């Protein structure tokens, strides 16, 4: 990598200098003056210092420029005269330009890096704040209900106790899902961790998703439409399973008035297109643009302490699909309700 960069820089330096040299020779003939020549070389040194890594090429270019001016454009022509004070002075000027430009560029590059890191940190801080907030609510319920049952074991009726325990169970389940999502997103976020893609049979994937989904939402039926033929898609099955479950659950949680939930897969060219659509209330216009990034962008948590509406789930979906090299979209159906669709590349 480093060697490649250096070769690129060297080529850039040589080509720029040669171009300027010819430009100078041409200008000398055109305008019959030499005042422009050093200026053009200074420009060259500046450009080279700006575009190359470190100081090396800038300094090399400045020395070469001095030599070129000295050799070709000052008396005696086409011979070196390196001891004249004029030559030493112009060499110094060129060197200073090269070094100063180099320093400036390095500084700018450094600052850009810091800025990018700050942004990433900011995003992480947002995520952490949002997550901590979201975790606090169910934890409060669990802790409070536990204490209530334990401290009032004899005075609470059996029904009351069961109700409290049931709420604890529900909130724990929510926490489990939250942690699963966080684990997925950190797995991808590292960047280093490669997805463990293996050929997955579409039918088996859908089967696993439906069984898991039924466990969580036993009252919601899902209408499934997949191609009859054998389809195998390379994917990290655990993560794609999570994407499908997140989208299905999102529909159950947010598509008010939904009576039908449909999961269909079609193949087109070398892609499999997954589509989950409902006939609920649809997605409001102000939400639809940020639906996959909302969790990170959220600067403030909802003041009423309610669960994050468009929770972390969809953000995780987008990250997983992106890591698979696919695309995910959300849109409102013309016939009412919302659809989520994403594509995955089929086995080649």
């Amino acid at each position, binding site marked *: 990598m480093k060697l490649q960069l250096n070769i690129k820089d060297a080529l850039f330096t040589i080509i720029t200098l040669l171009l300027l040299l010819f430009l100078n020779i041409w200008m000398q003939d055109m305008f019959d003056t030499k005042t422009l020549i050093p200026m053009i070389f200074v420009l060259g040194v500046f450009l080279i210092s700006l575009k190359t890594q470190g100081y090396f090429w800038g300094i090399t270019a400045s020395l070469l420029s001095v030599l070129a001016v000295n050799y070709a454009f000052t008396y005696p022509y086409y011979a070196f005269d390196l001891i004249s004070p004029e030559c030493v002075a112009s060499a110094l000027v060129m060197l200073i330009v090269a070094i100063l430009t180099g320093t400036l560029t390095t500084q700018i590059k450094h600052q850009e890096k810091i800025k990018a890191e700050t942004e990433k940190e900011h995003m992480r801080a947002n995520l952490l704040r949002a997550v901590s907030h979201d975790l606090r609510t169910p934890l409060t319920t669990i802790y409070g209900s536990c204490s209530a049952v334990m401290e009032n074991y004899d005075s609470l009726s059996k029904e009351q106790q069961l109700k409290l325990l049931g709420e604890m169970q529900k909130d*724990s389940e929510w926490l*489990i899902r939250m942690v699963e999502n966080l*684990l997925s997103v950190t797995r991808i976020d590292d960047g280093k961790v490669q997805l*463990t893609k*293996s*050929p*997955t*049979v579409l*039918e*088996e*994937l*859908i*089967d*696993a*998703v*439906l*069984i898991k989904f*039924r466990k969580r939402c036993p009252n919601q039926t*899902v209408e*499934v439409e*997949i191609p009859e033929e*054998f389809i*195998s898609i390379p994917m990290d*099955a*655990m993560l794609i*399973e999570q994407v499908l479950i997140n989208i299905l659950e999102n529909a159950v949680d947010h598509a008010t008035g939904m009576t039908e939930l449909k999961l269909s897969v079609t193949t087109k060219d070398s892609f499999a297109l997954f589509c989950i659509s409902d006939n609920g209330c649809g997605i409001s216009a102000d939400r639809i643009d940020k639906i996959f990034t909302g969790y990170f962008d959220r600067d403030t948590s909802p003041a009423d302490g309610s669960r994050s509406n468009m929770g972390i789930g969809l953000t995780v979906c987008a990250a997983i699909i992106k890591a698979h090299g696919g695309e995910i979209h959300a849109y409102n159906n013309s016939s009412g309700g919302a659809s989520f669709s994403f594509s995955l590349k089929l086995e080649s």
Partner: protein
Amino acid sequence: MNNNRYKILVIEDENNIRSFAKAILEANDYQVLTAETCGNGIMMFSSHRPDLVLLDLGLPDKDGLEFIRFLRDRQEVVPILVLSARTNEADKIEALDLGANDYITKPFGTGELLARVRAALRVSRYNGSMLASDGKFTLHDLVIDYDRRIITIAGEEIKLTQTEYNILVLLARHTGKVLTYATIIREVWGPSDDGGVKKLQVNMANLRKKLGEKPGDNRYIINELGVGYRICEETH
């Protein structure tokens, strides 16, 4: 209390998980022994001869996989049910290939735990085969007649290819046990076959279609995504 209760050894270092597993199992009339470490578990196993082992993989002294290896090296056939916080398929596959019967991923609910325990114990009761005295295997309305090599569902014969029949019989012989892709390929096609998982997946897709199974509604063969397949009496 009857003395013929099944004995279950729970090897788990987390105090809370141990105590809640013990509570559920005892409430369902199992006798429960516990161990916190792998070494302790081996000792308990040797002196009490439990009917089933619930094994955590992340133990403080040794990896739980060592326990499986230790038992299977000594030809012990006791069913082992792995409790694992790891969601990575590779770990599950390793445990299964070493001889674990099944796995259950933390966090799990009581219903799930009990279903797996029942399934694993049923296998050991039949001593690894559900072969009834008349040479037939029955699962719901599916019957495998080993002598005549015929499969019927609700009395109706299902035509299977040789390979499909072999896969079904292999799974039936190990009812309740998850068989990994590698195991099935080795048993059905032989150790030298390099046809790979795809051949198995295609055959399995055809087999399931012939058995009339639909995604999300499998009555006979349960698919463990990325790991393998199993036949289970209880669908969950």
